[in-house]
C-alpha cells in the first residue's frame, strides 16, 4: 500500500488512500493547503506551479461537485485540464478501463484524477499506468475518498488545533461510505483521542472496531461530550434494500436535532461532506446554524486538492 503511493524518496507519488500514509505526510498536505488557502482572496487567483502539465479528470461515476473542485484546483495551478465523464455499465470489465487509460497515456498526460464505482479502481490504475503519471483517487466504490478526508482534517484543524484532545463522532451510513473509511484512517493517523461511529447495525460494517473506532447504536450515547460531529449523506436506495425502514424513522433515531446537539461540547463543530438531505440526517437550522462549518469545507476543498496535486506532481517547493 504504502510503497505504491510513495516514490523511492518516500515522497507522495499517488494519492489513493489514507491507509499506510504517515502523520508527517498528512501534516505536509495540511501545511501546504494552508499556504494555498489565502490565494482565493487575492486578486490574481492563479500560480504557475503546474504550467505545462496536463491533468485528466476521469469520472466513471457522476459527481459535478467533486469534479468541479478538481478542475478549479488544477486551473489555479495553471495546469491544462481535461474532464471526461465515462458512463459505464455495471458489467464493464477491467479491460475497457485499462484501454481507456492506455489511450489517454498516449496523449502524454501527467495526472489522472479518478472516480470509479468499484473499490480498488484507483489502485488498479496506479499499478497499470505509465511510471511518470500520478493518480489521485477522487472516490472508489466503498473504499476510499482521501481528498475529502483531508479537507475535513483541514477544516477540523482550523477550528480545533490539537487532534490529540479531540473526540470525533461520525454518524450515518458507515457501511457504504468511502468518506467515512478515509476519515477514520486520517483521524487515527493524526492521533485523535477518540473516534466514534454512530449508526444502526445495518449500516455498520462488521468488525468496524478493527479500524480503531468505538461503535454506538444510539445518538444519545455516542454524542456525549464530542468536539466534532461529522454527518454522512444517506442514500435513498438504502430504504429499498431492507437496511432501513424509512426516512422518518431514521431521522427520529439518527438525525441531528437541536436537542441532540446539546449533548456534545458547547463549541462543537458540525460537518457534512454534502450534498445535505435536510430533514433526513440533519435539521435545517443546524446545517445553517453557528456550529456548522459545512460551507467552509467546500472552500477548503479547493486548497487541499491544490496541495495534493502539487505534492504528487512533486512540483511544490521546486518552483
Amino acid at each position, binding site marked *: *500500500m504504502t510503497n505504491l503511493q510513495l516514490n523511492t524518496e518516500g515522497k507522495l507519488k499517488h494519492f489513493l488512500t489514507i*491507509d499506510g500514509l504517515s502523520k508527517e505526510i498528512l501534516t505536509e498536505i495540511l501545511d501546504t493547503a494552508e499556504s494555498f488557502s489565502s490565494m482565493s482572496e487575492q486578486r490574481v487567483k492563479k500560480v504557475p506551479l503546474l504550467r505545462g502539465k496536463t491533468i485528466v479528470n476521469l469520472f466513471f461515476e457522476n459527481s459535478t461537485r467533486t469534479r468541479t473542485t478538481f478542475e478549479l484546483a488544477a486551473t489555479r495551478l495553471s495546469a491544462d485540464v481535461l474532464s471526461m465523464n465515462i458512463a459505464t455499465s455495471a458489467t464493464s*470489465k*477491467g*479491460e475497457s*478501463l*485499462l484501454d481507456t487509460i492506455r489511450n489517454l497515456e498516449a496523449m502524454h498526460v501527467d495526472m489522472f484524477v479518478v472516480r*470509479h464505482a*468499484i*473499490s*480498488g*479502481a484507483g*489502485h*488498479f490504475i496506479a499499478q*497499470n499506468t505509465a511510471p511518470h503519471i500520478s493518480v489521485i483517487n477522487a472516490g*472508489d*466504490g*466503498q*473504499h*476510499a475518498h482521501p481528498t475529502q478526508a483531508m479537507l475535513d482534517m483541514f477544516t477540523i484543524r482550523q477550528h480545533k488545533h490539537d487532534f490529540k484532545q479531540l473526540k470525533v463522532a461520525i454518524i450515518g451510513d458507515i457501511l457504504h461510505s*468511502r468518506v467515512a*473509511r478515509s476519515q477514520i484512517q486520517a483521524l487515527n493517523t493524526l492521533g485523535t483521542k477518540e473516534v466514534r461511529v454512530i449508526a444502526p447495525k445495518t449500516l455498520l*460494517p*462488521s*468488525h*468496524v472496531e*478493527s*479500524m480503531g473506532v468505538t461503535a454506538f447504536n444510539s445518538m444519545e450515547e455516542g454524542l456525549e461530550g464530542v468536539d466534532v460531529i461529522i454527518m454522512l449523506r444517506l442514500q435513498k436506495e438504502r430504504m429499498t434494500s431492507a437496511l432501513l425502514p424509512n426516512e422518518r424513522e431514521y431521522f427520529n433515531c439518527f438525525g441531528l436535532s437541536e436537542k441532540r446537539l446539546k449533548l456534545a461540547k458547547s463549541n462543537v463543530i458540525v460537518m457534512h461532506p454534502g450534498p445535505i438531505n435536510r430533514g433526513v440526517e440533519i435539521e435545517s437550522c443546524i446545517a445553517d446554524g453557528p456550529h456548522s462549518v459545512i460551507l467552509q469545507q467546500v472552500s477548503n476543498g479547493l486548497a487541499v486538492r491544490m496541495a495534493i496535486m502539487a505534492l504528487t506532481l512533486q512540483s511544490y517547493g521546486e518552483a
Partner: protein
Amino acid sequence: MNKILITNGHIIDPANNTDQSGTIYIADGKILASQEQKPDFTADITIDASNKVVCPGFIDLSVRLRDPGQSYKGTILSETTAAASAGVTSLCLPPDTRPVIDTQAVTELIADKSEKANYTQVYPIGALTNQLAGAELSSMFALKQAGCIAVSNATAPLASLLVLRRAMEYASSHDLLIMIHPVTPSLSNNGCAHEGAFATRYGLPGIPEASESIAVAQCLELAELTGCRLHFSQVSSRRSIIKIQQAKKYGLKVTADVAIHQLHLTEDDIEPFNSSFHVLPPFRTNKDKKSLRESLANGTIDIICSDHQPHDLDAKLGAFPETEPGISSLETLLPLTLRLVQDNAITLSQGIAALTLNPATTLGIESGTLTPGRPADICIFDPSLSWTVNPENWRSAGCNTPFWGQTFKGRVTHTLQTGKVIYSL
C-alpha cells in the same frame, strides 16, 4: 504392456496401513504386488525411488480444465499435463464447462479429448439441473450411463429448496453422489471477500460465514430426509465444520473436502487489491483456518482438493471485485499438503489419505491404494526437493496463484496412470 519395477522407495499406502520402504511390481496396468519378492519378474522399466515417497496417485475432486468452452483459459491438454506433473492420476471435472455437462454428447467430447491428451481418468461431474439453471432436473440416469461419477450444480444457485430436495431424491434413486458448494446466494449478496476486518478496511462487499453454514445446515436436513449420498465441496468456515461433525456423529452419509489454499491463507494474508487472492469461498479468519486444519486431522473433513481454476490474464486484470475468482492450484497441491505435515497439523499418512484413499472411497472408484489387483496409479515424490513457482516449472495455462515466485519443498518426480508413466521430472 510394460512391466515396471519401483525399488527402494518409502511406500505410504493408507488403505493398507503401509508406511515402510519396499518394492512395487506393476504389470498389465495393475499393481501386481508390493513388498514381497517376485524373483521371476523381469522389468521393462525400473524406477529407483531411493529417498522418495511412493504413494497412490492423487484423486482430485475439483479440477476446472476450462475445456470445452474456455480454451483461452486452459485446455484439456494443458491442464491434464499440469495434473500429471502434480501427481494427480484421477480428476473430477465440475459441470460448468461450456456447454455444461448435461448431455452424453459433452461427456463423449471430454472423454475423446482426454484420450488424445493421453490422460485417461477424467471423471465428469454431471449437472444437477439442466443447463445448471437450477430449475429442472437433468437426465441423471443418462449422465451416469455416460460416465458421470456424481452430480452437482457447481456454483450455480438452485431455484428453491424444493428443487434441491427433489434432486437429492432423484439422484439417490440412481445411487448418484451429490456434490454441493454450500452457499446461500442472498446472503453472499455478490460479495468478493470474507465479511470481516479486511473487507471492512478496503470497502469490499463481504460474504458472511453464515452464507455457507446455513446452506450446510439445510443440505444436511434434506440429506436426512431423502437419504442421499452427500458431499460438500470446498468448505471454508468453522461453523460449517461443527454442523458436519454433528451430522457424522449422528450417522449421516456425508463427506466433505477443503481446497488446499484454505488450509494456508486467511484474510490477513491478502495483499490489498491483489486479484490473485480473489477466490470463492473467500479466505476467512485464522480461527477458521485452525478449525479446518483440526477437522482434517480428526476426520470431519475427509478430503483435500486443489479446486483448480486456471484463468487468462485479462480475467485477473482489473479492480479486485471485478476480477474472476479462482486459483490455479494443481501444482501447489502436494507441496502445500507437505507444508501441513511440516506444521504438525496432520501426519504424512493423513495427508496422503486425504489425497488418495478418502476421495476414492467417496467416489467409489478402485484407485487410491496400492493393493495388488488395483489400477497402477502411482505418485513418486521427493519430499526434500526444492522448486520455485516460475514460468519454467509451471505447466498450467493459468498463472493465477498467490504463491507465484515462492519456493516450495517437495516435488513429484514420477506419475504413473494405469501402469503408464505419464510424467517424469
